């Protein structure tokens, strides 16, 4: 294992994982019948396993700094939903095909289901929970309520996060452009025409988006 910059997090992370792979403890764990593993001290082996599987991650989410330990295979979406309980971000397909998981990473809208959490090291993530200013809704959130841009509400956080960027990117100049640049967010209830109205309204409202 190359150790060019000892002490940097990425190398620390990988070396820990390498140790994990080579460690006799874990090799033994893999070969032990499950009954014996279960009979061993509750959770100890698995705590060892997870400690070596994980990497440090420092990320700012909704203006709050997090210092976390995550497995490299954990997606940003699953980190948000299952570990941080920021469940406003939704899982609709888990494969980048629906947009329900849309969040902002360093100001860009991305699919959090295809974003490994570890790749957000040092970045700023905004989720639907971080959009309003306290009790005051973001103009796009307000417009979605006003124009009834949703029904079941499940795709809504992704739609709104996407809509905010759609406007900021300059892709909300007319309804057809909004349609095209909001097409990465599927709404199965079929609220699209109201969503387009909401986005156009928010854009024309002149408020800071």
């Amino acid at each position: 294992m190359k150790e060019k910059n000892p002490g940097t997090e990425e190398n620390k992370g990988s070396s820990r994982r390498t140790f994990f792979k080579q460690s006799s403890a874990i090799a033994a764990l893999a070969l032990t019948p499950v009954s014996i593993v279960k009979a061993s001290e509750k959770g100890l082996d698995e705590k060892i396993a997870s400690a070596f599987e994980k990497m440090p991650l420092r990320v700012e989410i909704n203006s709050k700094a997090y210092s976390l330990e995550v497995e490299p295979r954990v997606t940003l979406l699953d980190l948000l939903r299952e570990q941080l309980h920021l469940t406003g971000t939704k899982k609709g397909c888990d494969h980048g095909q629906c947009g329900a998981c849309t969040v902002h990473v360093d100001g860009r809208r991305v699919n959090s289901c295809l974003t490994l959490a570890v790749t957000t090291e040092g970045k700023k993530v905004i989720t639907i929970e971080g959009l309003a200013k306290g009790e005051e809704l973001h103009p796009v959130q307000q417009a979605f309520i006003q124009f009834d841009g949703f029904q079941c509400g499940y795709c809504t956080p992704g739609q709104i996060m996407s809509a905010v960027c759609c406007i900021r990117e300059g892709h909300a100049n007319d309804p057809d452009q909004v349609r095209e640049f909001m097409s990465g967010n599927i709404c199965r209830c079929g609220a699209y025409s109201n969503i387009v109205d909401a986005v156009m309204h928010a854009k024309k409202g002149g408020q800071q988006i």
Partner: protein
Amino acid sequence: MGQFFEDPLDRVDGRLKVTGAARYFAEYDLPDMTFAVMATSAITRGKILTIDTKSAERAPGVLDVLTYLNMPSIPGWQSDPSKPAPQAALGGERYRVLGSDQILFNGQPIALVVADSLERAQYAASLIKATYQKASFETDLEKNKDKGQTVRGPRGADYNRGDANAYKTAAVQLEQEYTIPIETHNPMELHGIIASWKGNDSITVYAKTQGVKSTQQSLMNAFKLDQKNVQVFSEFVGGGFGMALRTWPQEILVAAAAKKIGRPVKLVMSRDQMFTMVGYRPFSIQQIKLGSTKEGQLTGLVHEALSQTSSYEDFAEGTVNMSKFMYACDNVATKYRIVPLDIGVPIWMRGPGEATGAFALETAMDEMAYKLNMDPIALRLKNYTETDPERNRPYSSKYVKEAYQLGAEKIGWFKRNPAPRSMKDGEWLVGYGMSSGVFNASRGEANCRAVVKDDGTLLLQSAASDIGPGTGTAMVQIAHEVLGYPVDKISFELGNSTFPPAPSQGGSTTTSTVGSAVHIACSSLKNKIVNLLLEKGGSDYAGKTAADFTFSDGNVRAGNVSVSIASLLKQQNLPALEVTENSKAGPDQQKYSMYSFSIHFAEVRVHPKTGVVRVKRVVTVADSGKIISPKTAASQMIGGVTGGIGMALMEESVIDHRYGRFINNNFADYHVPVSADIPHIDTIFIDKPDPVINPMGAKGMGEIALIGFAAAVGNAVYHATGKRIRELPITPDKLIE
């Protein structure tokens, strides 16, 4: 109560939904939560020879691996000797999840892995290896057309009125076949459940369900539990469209796993599993045979439908219903047959069978109109009926003539050149099409608890469910109308099995059924308040009668005296006044046929060289009684139209019949409309109360929004191109010239 349902109220749960605060089933965090992932069969039919779970069991974090070899027995699945054995499915099989080594459909669960994290459960599930003995199988309805069987019970009975052969001697005849592929509900929220036990006899679940009481009953049956020991929560549901109308076997499996390991278990299915395990709109092949006089009077109508079910469970729906009563015709015959195939069982999908049937009938009507050289609306008007020809009784209300008129005017129907392929916009061909939809309107039984408190609020509770149409918003509107409370002082709670019982949300019945219960409960509270004032209100109310009292803005007024209900309660030292009322349809409703109607218009552009179809404009008119909540009702209509555009132009779940597996089981390949596919949609409501159905005069609209719409698109494509596409979806390959 001044105005009658005039305020366009914003969705009452809107703020929760736009801030991400609305919690769906998978978002409840319980202590010691565990995560379940299913491994599924790679074959379509046969049996498991070996199943190797060792690596999965040894993978980090794995708590348990269930297969048919160690699946705990489900008490309710053991046959009860005191009860008659249930009739075997037409396919002759029985399916119990992880119940045996038998594989009955591709993608059937063969193991459930439970681990302490989602990632670990997913990885461990990928380590499970099975070998199989394959058996031959059938998944293709088109290759098994001759195996149609009659469905047991009234749904499956053949229908005959007059002479079934009358169409054969008509002056103008039409015989055509219409095919609709499997469509998959694909609500945005993935299906699943969280199950958590307290001891061995008490369970709480957070479910994705269209009926908390129905889920409760399923769990009571499966585990032989008392009602009080089964709690089901389902406050927010991320779409259902029918697929959450039953408790699927894998939900019981998760409950069994949770009981076994003694920790809460959460299952969130994957999108590909949404194609195999939670139902679909079945593949259908329909024949319509029409006979007409030269003047357009229908003299014969035959509608025969063939559909599919699974080998282990029968599924039937109302595919041929509309043909029995929509048009005046003396000679009508319908047949409905199903073929058991080696695939999971279907379930109602929005509009269900009626949407399937309406595509065939309403396309055939368009074809007949062109054969007769008649306007499609004129043909429908020619065969218009004011009484239900199937049951020989009046409609409770029907304003369909008005709906034709309003829709036609709005889209400019009569300004079009009716000749096929006569209109152009650049090199795009322009076409207009229309169609009708109809669905049973009914009022079921429901209960509602209503509480006015001394803080000035009104609380309503009912064990209803909401998959998105805006149930809470409509209920708040109804309570506001009856009791005059400001809408922001009213809360309606649902999705909790401990609330007074209400039926599942399906078949466009919630507003009528639960709304009536809300109406009655609020009326009952009103009486209580009036009686309280008459009995204890003192001299101000001497000589008054109930008719003298009016309610508005949280106050009750009699003559010149007005008092707020909150202060009345305080005066009387009552923290709250509470009622729980039951509501059901009365004998009056039996005297009428009650239906909601929709009339759809679509304008399309078709590019003849590339076969691309774009829906340019839509007008949809609903005759669904009084509109309770105009905003959410309009949303339901545009949602139905969007679903209809999907059905018409792109939706198709494809099975590779060599393998029996779905080949496009994801959101990239199973196309549902995206924003760019959907134009502005004009919704028009007749908005006249039905005098019979319920106190609000409201009929349902969830189904009619979609029923028939695909035919409007297909008819518009015909008008544009002169090409009649009878096999959905109308994809570019079918139109390229």
